[in-house]
């Protein structure tokens, strides 16, 4: 049984890392909190669900459509954020909270409050691997998540744009002095974040019920992992995602499925209590 917990925990955790990746990137570059992050994820899921259900489009081909929608919303959000005054963290939190309410109601209007899920029969089948039962769903989740994370890693490490992003994350002012277009990097971070959400959203729709207020959990998960890992360290993000995924899997087995939602909340509160100066960890001198 525990190997099942391990496998599902790692698969789930890798997916959580993918979810957190976009959040961490946007926060790292622009120092804004996006509380509508989970709503964007659910929106992308809904887009995929709608295409799959009404037009019978294969899941694989729903990703581009989902990305287009999240890109549009993210770039609007970026425009909103660029008009905010200090304190950025607080104001972005409240504005994106407003956007989350807007999106929730928009989704309620478009897709109603019913619980929806993308059911791909193939994903529920499975195979045995060294006596270990893996469903294709878990396998796909794990493989796709790790693939996207690896691509993001390569982008950040080995491309010109990635270097610009990393420099901006480390020190905005020095990056600007070095000739990096910092506000351009902000837009780029939102764009990459949107692509990551657009990829994660349809997957989310396969493993979790979609309903207009389902996003809060995903937002909490993204924030928890980001605060655990800090920004700009993909390996720590993966570790954080796995710890959270495993903890949730254990909670489901030990306490029952209804306790799962408490895990990320408790982890977030504990992390904040231990690191009161937050993600960037700068104590006022």
């Amino acid at each position: 049984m525990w190997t099942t917990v391990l496998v599902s925990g790692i698969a789930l955790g890798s997916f959580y890392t993918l979810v957190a990746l976009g959040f961490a990137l946007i926060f790292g570059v622009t120092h804004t909190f996006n509380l509508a992050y989970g709503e964007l994820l659910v929106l992308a899921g809904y887009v995929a669900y709608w295409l799959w259900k009404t037009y019978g489009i294969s899941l694989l081909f729903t990703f581009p459509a989902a990305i287009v929608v999240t890109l549009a919303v993210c770039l609007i959000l970026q425009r909103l954020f660029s008009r905010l005054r200090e304190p950025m963290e607080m104001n972005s939190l409240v504005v994106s909270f407003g956007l989350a309410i807007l999106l929730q109601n928009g989704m309620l209007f478009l897709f109603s409050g019913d619980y929806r899920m993308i059911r791909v029969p193939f994903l529920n089948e499975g195979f045995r691997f060294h006596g270990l039962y893996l469903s294709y769903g878990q396998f796909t989740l794990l493989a796709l998540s790790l693939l996207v994370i690896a691509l993001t890693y390569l982008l950040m490490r080995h491309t010109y744009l990635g270097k610009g992003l990393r420099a901006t994350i480390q020190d905005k002012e020095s990056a600007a002095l070095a000739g990096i277009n910092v506000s351009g990097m902000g837009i780029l971070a939102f764009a990459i974040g949107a692509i990551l959400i657009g990829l994660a959203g349809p997957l989310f729709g396969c493993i979790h019920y979609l309903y207009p207020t389902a996003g809060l959990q995903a937002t909490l998960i993204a924030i928890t992992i980001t605060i655990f890992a800090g920004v700009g360290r993909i390996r720590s993000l993966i570790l954080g995602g796995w710890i959270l995924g495993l903890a949730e899997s254990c909670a489901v087995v030990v306490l029952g499925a209804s306790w799962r939602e408490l895990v990320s909340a408790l982890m977030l509160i504990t992390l904040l209590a231990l690191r009161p100066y937050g993600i960037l960890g700068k104590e006022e001198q």
Partner: protein
Amino acid sequence: MIKGQPTSEPVQKPPIGQFALLPGLAMLLVLPLVAGGSDYILQVFTHALLLATLALAWNILAVSGSISLGHAAFFGVGAYTSGLLSLELGVSSWLTIPTAGLSAVAIAVLMWLFCHRLRGAYFALATLAFVEIPRVITDNWDGLTRGSRGLVGLPGLPGLRLGAHHFDISASPTGSYYFVLGYGLLLLAMVTLIFRSNLGLALQAIREEETAASTLGIQVQKYRLMALLLSALFSGITGACYAHLVRYIEPGMVYGIHFSAIPLIFAICGGRFTIIGPALAALVLYPLDQFLFHPLLPAGHEFLYGAVIILTILFLPSGFWGQLRKGHLVSIKTGSIE
């Protein structure tokens, strides 16, 4: 009111005086007569008043600079405490409602243990996550809380016995309306006292400049805790009133993000640096939502709140009442009143 020394400069006329609100208060007082037989109008305004008290209670904490995204915790615990005490033990709601306030205070102490070192956005995030603790526990502790089935058939708001007369407040919408209005006015008086007292001055000073405040002798953490506990107390009482007003509660409802978002939206939109702004926003926005947007857009009418909060932060950071009374957010009167 404390009078300052006469100053040579004439007192500046405020752009809009608090007395401009008197007609509004008069209208609230006579509303049941005006609304005639329409129970619906009365119900909407009863709810608006209740949400106004939640916004006022939320703002007691916000005065100290701490924005909470977790007041549903106090609201929900208050609702469940009062609901369970009256259902299981048959205690009069005159007793269960104050007890509900105290149980919310107890939860606030727990929240304080986790959050006392946090400021700004991190405090807000921690409170957002904190709500999950009472929600999941209530949802799962079937034996005590009846879990996700919720509490059905709660008794109404308390009755009043004056000599031989017995006013059953819950029996008529008018009775409930005046009960909530009375509580609202009481809370407004409390909040005014808090704002004008040394506690209020300390909280505002902490919000503006914590370091300077501590240098002037203010025990920052002590006052922040007091603000949180007072805010929780009244949020819990409001939650209890809600339970007896609606007579049905379940975890997803009273611990939902809705009751964390609503006070934040009303307070920021009305003006969180003012005493009455949060309540005003509730009394304007909620009826607007119910009478105009709900019929137009049955699913998704609450987009109004999302739009309002974004527009306020972008264009009116001190809220609309704060903007109208710009420069007159002060607690101590300075002009020559003699």
